């Protein structure tokens, strides 16, 4: 069997289904949950929460700051023209460019890291069901072993309100 999953309308039922799969000995990383909205209040939604995104944003900002400083200070020295009596490398006006590039670096790093860590763009997995975007919560396992699949099927069916499906 390639995959087994169930669709639930009720997040409480989805939580029970996740628990049932755990009881059957399915490893946490093998349990797939998909939904049309984040369910912060539910335990199943707390999976994969740890992220380096904040640090990556900070690193992007730092990179932007360095680029901004080098761009302004270096290029002003390449053609040392005095403008309005200001120093060749004018720190005060340069702060504006450095600030903008710092923020741009942080924003771009955040977006790139977000896309990479969320696997976007990507192909739809074989477990995906269009009912998810209609409000159903999908709980399933991709590629279970032949002996485990019937047990998972029963575990998912044991939770009330679910439509169990399998991909063979």
């Amino acid at each position, binding site marked *: 069997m390639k995959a087994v999953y169930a669709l639930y309308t009720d997040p409480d039922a989805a939580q029970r289904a996740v628990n049932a799969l755990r009881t059957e000995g399915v490893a*946490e990383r093998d349990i797939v949950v998909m939904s049309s909205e984040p369910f912060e209040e539910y335990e199943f939604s707390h*999976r994969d*929460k740890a992220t380096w995104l904040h640090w990556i944003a900070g690193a992007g900002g730092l990179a932007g700051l360095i680029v901004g400083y080098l761009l302004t200070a270096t290029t002003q020295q390449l053609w040392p023209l005095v403008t309005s009596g200001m120093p060749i490398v004018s720190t005060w006006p340069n702060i504006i460019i450095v600030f903008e590039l710092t923020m741009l670096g942080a924003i771009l790093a955040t977006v790139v890291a977000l896309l990479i860590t969320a696997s976007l763009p990507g192909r739809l997995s074989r477990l995906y069901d269009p009912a998810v975007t209609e409000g159903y919560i999908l709980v399933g396992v991709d590629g279970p072993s032949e002996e485990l699949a019937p047990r998972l099927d029963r575990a998912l069916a044991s939770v009330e309100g679910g439509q169990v499906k399998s991909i063979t």
Partner: protein
Amino acid sequence: MNRTSNNPLADDLVRPLFHTSVWFYGSVTVLASIVLCGAAAWGYQLWYGIGVAGINWPVFWGFYLTNFVFWIGISHAGTLISAILRLVNARWRRPVTRCAEVITVFALMIGAMFPVIHLGRPWLAFWLAPYPSAREIWPNFRSPLAWDFFAINTYLTGSLLFLLLPMIPDFALVRDRSTGLRKRIYGLLALGWQGTTKQWHRLEAGMQIMAIAIIPVAVSVHTIVSFDFSMATVPMWHSTIFGPYFVAGAIFSGIAALIIAMAALRRLLHLEAYLHPVHFENLGKLLLLMSLLWGYFVFAERLTVWYGNEHSEMAVFWATQRGEYAPLYWTMVICNFVIPLPILALRQLRTVAGTVVASFAVLIGMWLERFLIVVPSLARKPLSYTWGEYTPQPVEIILMVATFAAMILLYMLFSKFVPIISIWEMKVGNQPHPPVVTETEDELAGLWKARP
């Protein structure tokens, strides 16, 4: 619609994408014609030279720079307000955020066009980009125009991403409801979104970081636009108050534009069930606050100039208070202060219609404010033999009207192809509270460490 569902919220909000009325085509045709007239006017100016516009010595900044500042101000409606509301987790923000963020992106695009239109040789505008152009010369980073380039492009990039990222789950919904070419297009836009827990966490974390980053950028943009003026020793421009004064004015006009856009969407797309009177009331309160703040800044600026009694500044002061610019000045005061104040302060008048009336007044008043900052100071420079006048010419007026048409046109087209209210965020807003978590955060953290 290609699929039926038991998801009425999504049904309502994606309906405009699948059904098009006759008035839509009619409106698009009219607006596109006006935009084409604007393009033709610009072409005329390119062909005959910048002299066909009314800008001439000593008033080199006329309608074009007025519109530049005005549209950059309007852009503060969206991303800034949306980011603040996201960070403070205001629940009423959910139907408002996307309507607002779209305004930012389109207003920035339109605003950024004006300095290019204003250039005598716009085909050389790329010289502002940070690269060594002719003779290995880099842009002069000490020039406020170079600051504008960086600030506007950073804000535009950030705002565009801030708008696009939360649209991905909604693109996935439209993808799953469509067939044929539409399914392929929305499939590409959805980037393979599936709604896994990891994707949701990353999206929410990313949006939070973006919201934190975009607020100082938004403030910096209009501060830097104000530096275009305050860095020059022109009467009534060289002022330390200009930065916050411009930012306050930008948010003021931005909120007014947002209220008008929301009221139009509510009526035309039948979104009464999602854009409630309470949204207009809350935004009306914000508009009231900004009206008071604007009044405070104007008083502080005027009092300082009057008390200083410096000859060249007083020439501009009196030209606006009781001279040839006085009718415009007092219209501005009426539109920005006298009309909105009672409407927005009295709860009975702070209705959908009331806030829209106040917002139209504010938009007119804020456009006049921009004009009165730009023109009188240039027309009354320190030496009286440099005094002059400015009269806008048809090319400038047509271009200005065309940009308003372009804004409406872009907004209409956007709401035709993208759900104008974020569907997944509305669903989150409808989730029951309080939480049903059985384990504490600490227990959960330990649990995930222990599990394989």
